[in-house]
């Protein structure tokens, strides 16, 4: 074995060890790396208590209501299994829509309502012209099924 072979093997082994170590680290930090908690995770008590966190999911169809002041909004975030009502006072992003993904930051009140201080729209990975989206929606309503890939939630 020539010295350069030894060096390459050393580099390779080093990279392997590094990959292993970083996998362990990422596993250990798994919980801290999520950007938001799903309503199911909140229901299971996985979300941090006593401090703010983010909740993410779909805005339930027909759940968006606006109060008289025009700023305070109520809506429900759902992951189709559990639902969490959210109250927010402020300006919603343009892409915030019922049936689309959203992430809200704030605190869970005692009555189970999530008081949001910031609401972000979560965009999905689908890009298409409006005509195609229309055709797709027509086909979907014809089939009677309401599905969406807007929010991909890890099954953990």
């Amino acid at each position, binding site marked *: 074995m020539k010295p*350069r072979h030894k*060096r*390459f093997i050393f*580099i390779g082994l*080093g*990279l392997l060890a*590094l*990959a292993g170590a*970083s996998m362990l680290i*990422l596993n250990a930090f*798994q919980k801290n*790396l*999520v*950007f*938001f*908690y*799903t309503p199911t995770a909140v229901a299971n008590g996985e979300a941090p208590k006593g401090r703010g966190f983010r909740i*993410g999911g779909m805005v339930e169809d027909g759940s968006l209501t606006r109060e008289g002041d025009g700023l305070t909004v109520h809506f429900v975030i759902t992951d189709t299994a559990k639902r969490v009502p959210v109250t927010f006072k402020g300006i*919603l*992003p*343009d*892409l*915030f*829509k019922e049936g*689309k993904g959203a*992430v809200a930051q704030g605190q869970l009140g005692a009555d189970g309502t999530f008081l949001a201080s*910031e*609401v*972000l*729209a*979560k*965009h*999905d*990975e*689908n*890009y*298409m*012209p*409006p*005509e*195609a*989206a*229309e055709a797709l929606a027509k086909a979907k309503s014809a089939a009677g099924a309401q599905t969406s890939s807007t929010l*991909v*939630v*890890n099954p953990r």
Partner: protein
Amino acid sequence: MGINWFKYSSPQAFHPLAGKMIPWFSVAAGLLIIIGLYIGFFVAPTDFQQGDSYRIIFVHVPAAWMSMFLYVIMAAWAGVGLGLNARPSFMMAQAIAPTGAMFTFIALLTGAMWGKPTWGAWWVWDARLTSELILLFQYIGIILLRAAIDDLRRADRASAVLALVGVVNVPIIYFSVRWWNTLHQGASVSMTASPKMATTMLTAMLIMTVGFWMYSFAVTLARVRCVILDRERQPMWGNQTSIQEVAEAR
């Protein structure tokens, strides 16, 4: 047998070859980027949700791809340099770093410009954005570490080790949207699934990507020529110096 490729592993032979290739890559880069931007801005349809603001992906996504891809190439050159003790490999790694850093910065900047109208925030600390920001710091760290060490051999080896260690971040960036809940959306284009975007949009994005590749080739080759001249200035091979003269010059 054709061309003896190993001939070009000598800086002396590679310098003129790089010089010959630069114009071709530059022209290809210019043409492809103009065509890609034209299709992206004027031909591609608007998006059903975002309207016209989505058009930033024609710069954002290719730049983000290049930032990761160039890092891997840079680390590969660094690894080859460490394994073979080859100066030209280190020179390539040195030449790639600033271009990679630039593409990382462009990806972050365009992402912020897109995030504000779409998400409602310039910046969020989700896994995808944070790991891409770390990639920018890695590039800067590698460039700085090299600049901080006067002895070229030690600078080569130190920055090569740093580049190789940092390569773990690339799969983290790429898979972050799949492994964790992030605000950043998942991949619209991947090798395992059919693209989730209209064909014209995809075409423009891929043309832009190839254009960025050509740009990276051209700029890296131009920079590696400067690096070669800078680092090999003592041997003076530019004007057919004999080995003895070189030895005397040292």
